[in-house]
């Protein structure tokens, strides 16, 4: 479970005051709101990225543990963004192995795991391809697999479908929700389009103060 308590974010011209947000395992909470309200900043704060221009106070708990003081790499929170962010200097296989690096297992086992994952999304032939050689939909699938490969306890989705066309958007959305349901972890989705939302929606404009 992911819990956010007593959150105050002070921006230059406005602030967000959120008493409490809770996301259960297997649930996807959707955050919406006008551009510039602070959706992505909130996501980055949860991830652990320093926000030098914003004053932020609040508590963040993951499975009961206060992770607010931990660096990004210790929080075990995954991230998928609109830009996909597959490392361009690594092949698809290397991207997945990079994410797997902290897991136990010998080389053969790790390569087997990657092969299975690529089989599951019908991208086995693309193991040695570079991200620039993938279509938008293929890259989006690999990005989600990579985020899950490090076995995070929660995942953040920052407008992951907004760069996709209408048809592909539905396909990738369905793939994402199916995969996340199987992974059974709390997830937060930031989007402008409420049609993306699979469950509860929180509009940050309800927490907006001048």
């Amino acid at each position, binding site marked *: 479970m992911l819990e956010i308590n007593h959150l105050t974010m002070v921006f230059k011209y406005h602030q967000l005051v959120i008493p409490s947000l809770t996301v259960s395992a297997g649930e996807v909470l959707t955050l919406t709101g006008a551009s510039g309200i602070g959706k992505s900043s909130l996501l980055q704060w949860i991830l652990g*990225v320093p926000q030098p221009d914003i004053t932020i106070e609040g508590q963040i708990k993951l499975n009961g543990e206060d992770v607010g003081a931990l660096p990004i*790499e210790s*929080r075990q929170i995954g991230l998928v963004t609109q830009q996909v962010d597959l*490392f361009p200097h690594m092949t698809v296989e290397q991207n997945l192995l990079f994410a797997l*690096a902290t897991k136990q297992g010998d080389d053969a086992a790790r390569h087997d795991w990657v092969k299975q994952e690529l089989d599951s999304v019908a991208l086995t032939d693309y193991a040695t391809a*570079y991200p620039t050689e993938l279509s938008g939909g293929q890259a989006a699938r690999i990005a989600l697999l990579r*985020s899950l490969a490090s076995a995070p306890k929660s995942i953040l989705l920052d407008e992951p479908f907004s760069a996709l066309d209408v048809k592909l958007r539905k396909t990738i959305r369905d793939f994402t929700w199916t995969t996340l349901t199987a992974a059974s972890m709390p997830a937060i989705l930031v989007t402008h389009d409420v049609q993306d939302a699979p469950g509860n929606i929180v509009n940050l404009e309800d927490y907006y103060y001048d």
Partner: protein
Amino acid sequence: MISRMVRVAIALLWLILPLGVVLWQSTTASFEGALSDAFRALSGSALLTFAVTLITSLIVLFGALGLARGKRLSATWASFIAVPHVAFAIGLLWLVSPSGWLVRIVDALLPMWQGPLQSSWLSSKSAFTLMVVLVLKELPFLILMTQANVQQMPVLRWQQQAQALGYSRRRFWWLIVVPALLRRIRLPLYIIAIYTVSVVDIPLLVGPNAPALLAQAVFELNWQFTSNTQGLVHWGSLLLVLVAIVTLVVLRVVEWVLQRWLSSLAASGKRTPVAQTTGKRAGLPWFWAGLAVIIFMSLLLQSVQQSWFYPSLWPQGWQWSRWLAEWPYIAPLLYNTWILAVLSATLAWLSAVALLEVQAQRQQHQLHVGWLAMLMVPQLVLVLGWQQTIGPDSGLIGLLWSHTVFCFPYAYLTLHGAYHAYPRRWLWQARSLGYGPWAAWFKVLAPMLKRPLALAWAMAFSISVAQYLPTQWLAPVTHPTLTTEAVSIASGGDWRLGSVYALAQWASVWIVFMLALWGTRARN
């Protein structure tokens, strides 16, 4: 608090201490008389320096503004900028001298020509030759800086708007883009002006002697260890600062006048359509690339020729053994040059990367002029201050310090754009996958920025190789380098031998740049 103290300490070491020492020595020097006497002795040099600097800076400014109208940055500029000034000057002089290669080509093409040229303007040592060398060498730097700034502006959208309003591309460039550019290229222009005020090695090779440029005059006075000349040296170096300040003020006034004039032209609403000229500029980088190749060839031929009489286009006699005969002298210089350049480039590169990383983490993306302050003070004054502080032959440590100080701003400048354009979200991704900040930097950022990182190191290396004044004043006996020897030999008039050392200097830089480019070629 700690970072502020570090900054103050660095500023003290880099700037305040050497400048303070020079100022203190000036006021307490036993020179009979005062500033007025020094001014009388050096006023001719000061005026000449002011004129050369102002003319060079203005030609470079208007040249860059007129020639930078391209959308793409060309790597040719960067590779040309790395050509050492000394090698360039030695090679160019043979090309443009009254009996040089260019005149011989004209002679061969025009049978009625009565050569060689009788012109004091193109003599091997004149203010005009000096300005030609400086303009040709500095113009690509400002063009590159101008194009880098153009890329950060929505020029294409502005152009569409202006053309829709009936303005030609040329008029749009001068009325809309140039006013926005002037403020942005102020810093590199000032760097060029300060460099011109303070440069010593190029005037020693191609500058006039009576009067000499102020920096050269002070440099030569500093070798005479009488109390009178030492007083002159200190006052002269302060005069150099004064010339630099006046030049910058005049350049600022020129910018202000130009801004006002262009604003009034824009407000007039006049549209004067002209023919499209964009195609003409596609070959511009190739002019400089061709020039570099010709100069390189000229050095190569000079280094192996035994006799080459006018008007022959090729040498009549060859002396291949010159390289072999010189090798025992060149080898230790190569060793000194490379050790010094590798160490100082590495220190400067590490400092620049550390600074850029801290700035990126704090989202301070602006180029901070404070970190380029050592380029905004005449080098001669800084090095004189260090010489007075740590002694005239301070060994490798003092030399390493001085080279690192001058390599650092170029490493910082070269890497600044790419480092701040790098999306930090790649690092967040790596860290969200469980990697610490160091691991994320080495496994994700470094491989993706390997070429700018390598080129920044290569640029720092080339700056160290080209240093003349710091080497000559801080460790002339213990650590002579290719540059100091090339200047000594060529300024003595032996261009053939000078070409050997200039080529060795150029080759050192070229090898490092080629390795940087080849080692970081993209796989996909």
